[in-house]
């Protein structure tokens, strides 16, 4: 009896939370897939018709936005690696006993609402705002110059909003490197640059990988930055999905696009994991 009870304990523990995830996370995915294959309208109701047209139409009408999202997501991720790696490196190796203070400073943006800090950038970068206004007044910039509504503003906004997700895992990987390994490299006459290239960099890759995983997905699927900082020709697929769901209420098209986005992200992640030779994606990401 007590052995049976012991065997059932873990199931009793995961049951309520597992049920919640099953009903509100797993089943909705299936419902969304089914919705994407239906035809009809809000007024007339929907019928399940295995209508693949939603996918064909979605791709035909919105391939620009899909490609743009992938490009922006990629650009923002690369920008984050370039911006974040030296910072993670410096904190890990030169942070001394103030490492946690620097990490805390890196995390400060998370204490301000995502929407609010994006709007703060809109305010900073506005055409005659506190940054561009004075520069235009003294003639350093032409009057028509603008940052808002350009791809640059959107990509920089994406990089800004998710940068800490990139720095933290890179820092964890770099911090774990045993200093004796570096000493060994120098004892074997590796130059500082060689040590970096052949010891530090490979050992930091799991962190970079985790960072890319944590930033590429939210950046590619975001619509807040494109809405607040972008213009009509920086629309991303997230904007389309949001608009189709909440304004047009064309659910079949909306869910087909949403599914397409998910599929692209999944394929991207797994292709990336294989290319990098990481055996266990789950293992890396679980940290």
């Amino acid at each position, binding site marked *: 009896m007590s052995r049976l009870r012991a065997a059932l304990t873990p199931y009793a*523990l995961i049951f309520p939370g597992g049920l919640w995830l099953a009903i509100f996370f797993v089943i909705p995915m299936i419902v969304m897939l089914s919705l994407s294959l239906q035809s009809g309208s809000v007024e007339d109701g929907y019928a399940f018709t295995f209508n693949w047209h939603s996918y064909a139409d979605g791709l035909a009408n919105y391939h620009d936005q899909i490609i743009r999202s992938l490009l922006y997501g990629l650009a923002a991720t690369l920008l984050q690696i370039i911006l974040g790696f030296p910072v993670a490196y410096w904190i890990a190796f030169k942070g001394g006993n103030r490492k946690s203070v620097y990490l805390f400073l890196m995390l400060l943006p998370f204490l301000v609402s995502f929407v609010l800090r994006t709007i703060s950038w809109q305010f900073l970068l506005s055409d005659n705002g506190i940054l561009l206004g004075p520069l235009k007044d003294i003639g350093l910039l032409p009057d028509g110059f603008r940052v808002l509504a350009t791809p640059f503003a959107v990509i920089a906004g994406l990089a800004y909003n998710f940068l800490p997700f990139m720095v933290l895992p890179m820092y964890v990987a770099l911090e774990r490197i045993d200093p004796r390994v570096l000493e060994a490299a120098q004892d074997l006459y590796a130059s500082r640059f060689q040590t970096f290239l052949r010891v530090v960099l490979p050992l930091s890759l799991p962190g970079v990988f985790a960072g890319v995983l944590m930033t590429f997905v939210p950046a590619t699927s975001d619509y*807040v930055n494109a809405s607040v900082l972008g213009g009509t020709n920086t629309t991303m697929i997230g904007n389309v999905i949001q608009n189709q769901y909440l304004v047009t209420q064309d659910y079949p098209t909306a869910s087909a696009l*949403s599914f397409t986005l998910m599929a692209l992200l999944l394929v991207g992640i797994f292709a990336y994991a294989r290319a990098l030779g990481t055996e266990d994606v789950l293992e890396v990401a679980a940290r």
Partner: protein
Amino acid sequence: MRQGLLRGRGLQIYTWLVIAWLVVPIAVMILFGFNDTHGRYNTAWQGFTLKWYGKLFEIGDLTQALVNSLLIAVLTMIIAGVLGSLIGLALGRYRFRGSATMNVVMFAAISCAEIVMGASLLSLFVTLAVPLGFWTIVISHVMFSISFVAVTVRARVMTLDRSLEEAARDLGAGTWTTFRLVTLPMIFPGVLAGSMLAFALSIDDFVITNFNAGGTVTFPLWIWGATRVGIPPQVNVMGTLIFAVGVLIAVVNGLVARRRN
């Protein structure tokens, strides 16, 4: 020269520049909460004032949105805190058939694009004709927070020494007594950290809320709706206060951790 750049001041200056980049929009938000603006637009500096702190709750629906956000965050913290901790305890402590599936579902929930989660949950609610509002927001927030709590608690459980529980049992404590007096106090830091994470994720969430809110407005949704007409200084003040509370909690937490070491 290269050595100088890599090892010396160069990287340090670079790091501080990146930190400055991260902090600038926050500083601007705080500063313009003190702006003595008179019109509808809080865009040009007009002088220092504290009046917006006095008029903090003068915009009725903004206050309501903040109250909604806090209520939802507290409910999410409690529900996801309990459900996620139970999962974390099970995964960290027991080996059982199905644990791999649970791990995969949690990994999927953590790495899934927010817009896909929000859209699919809305698809479910639309299909079942569930009216959207306060409770659908709570459901969605608990859904995306559970996995984060579970992962946090699991990490804590895995570091524990099981012999302490065995000792309690040898001394005659029953299963429940052992859990209450030995296991729970030991995993409590993990439970607390996980629950606070759930609170933070909930109060800041925009995307999933945007999809499942119906007519109910939360703090981020209110700001989103106000972008076109201009953000009133009260929003800056509320953002500043939330920021200050967050910094305070983090600093106290850091000091306590340091003292313990």
